[in-house]
């Protein structure tokens, strides 16, 4: 299945600043997904990123706050903008595992963000 390199693995940021998270996949994929996992909670889908088109955001998430880039079929970035302590979470990127149906989704190792 695909291998995802995600960075940074963690960061502590000042409120009001922005952080860009990068995900690199070792093979070409059509869609990449960005999730947020707040402490002790489940994963919430932020948006789906397709190469060559604007990302599709889920309810409660907006492009101004979480701009996403998808310049090619192996790379995507998520920016958390104008951060507040409520943005402290783990952010994960994900792709459908290669091999077709039956292989689920593969996740990056996550970015643990703390906003102070």
């Amino acid at each position, binding site marked *: 299945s695909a291998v995802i390199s995600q960075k940074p693995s963690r960061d502590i940021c000042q409120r009001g600043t922005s952080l860009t998270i990068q995900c690199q996949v070792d093979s070409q994929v059509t869609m990449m997904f960005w*999730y947020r996992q707040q402490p002790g909670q489940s994963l919430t889908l932020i948006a*789906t990123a397709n190469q060559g088109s604007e990302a599709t955001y889920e309810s409660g998430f907006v492009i101004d706050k979480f701009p996403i880039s998808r310049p090619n079929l192996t790379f995507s970035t998520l920016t958390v903008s104008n951060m507040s302590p409520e943005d402290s979470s783990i952010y*994960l990127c994900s792709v*459908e595992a290669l091999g077709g*149906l039956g292989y*689920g*989704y593969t996740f990056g*190792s996550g970015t643990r963000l703390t906003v102070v």
Partner: protein
Amino acid sequence: QQPVQSPQAVILREGEDAVINCSSSKALYSVHWYRQKHGEAPVFLMILLKGGEQKGHEKISASFNEKKQQSSLYLTASQLSYSGTYFCGTEGSPDKLIFGTGTRLQVFP
């Protein structure tokens, strides 16, 4: 709408069995099951694509009742390595995976 899992938490001794349920209010295209250990990313266990389908993976198996929009994960003869948080993930349409509320499983010697 986020799928609801039950129970929220399970405590087992090694060798005991457990069942985790996942219920959705929407019609489902597929159901996934993942296990997440503390500080790690979720790891895929299995996917069920058809109503009434059952699948097995060693001592972990699952069923999917498409009509009831429900799935169950069966853990038999639990091992210490089974500890973690289990999430179902549902696709109401392809390529949009929504995770359930989660079930924390702890296995003790």
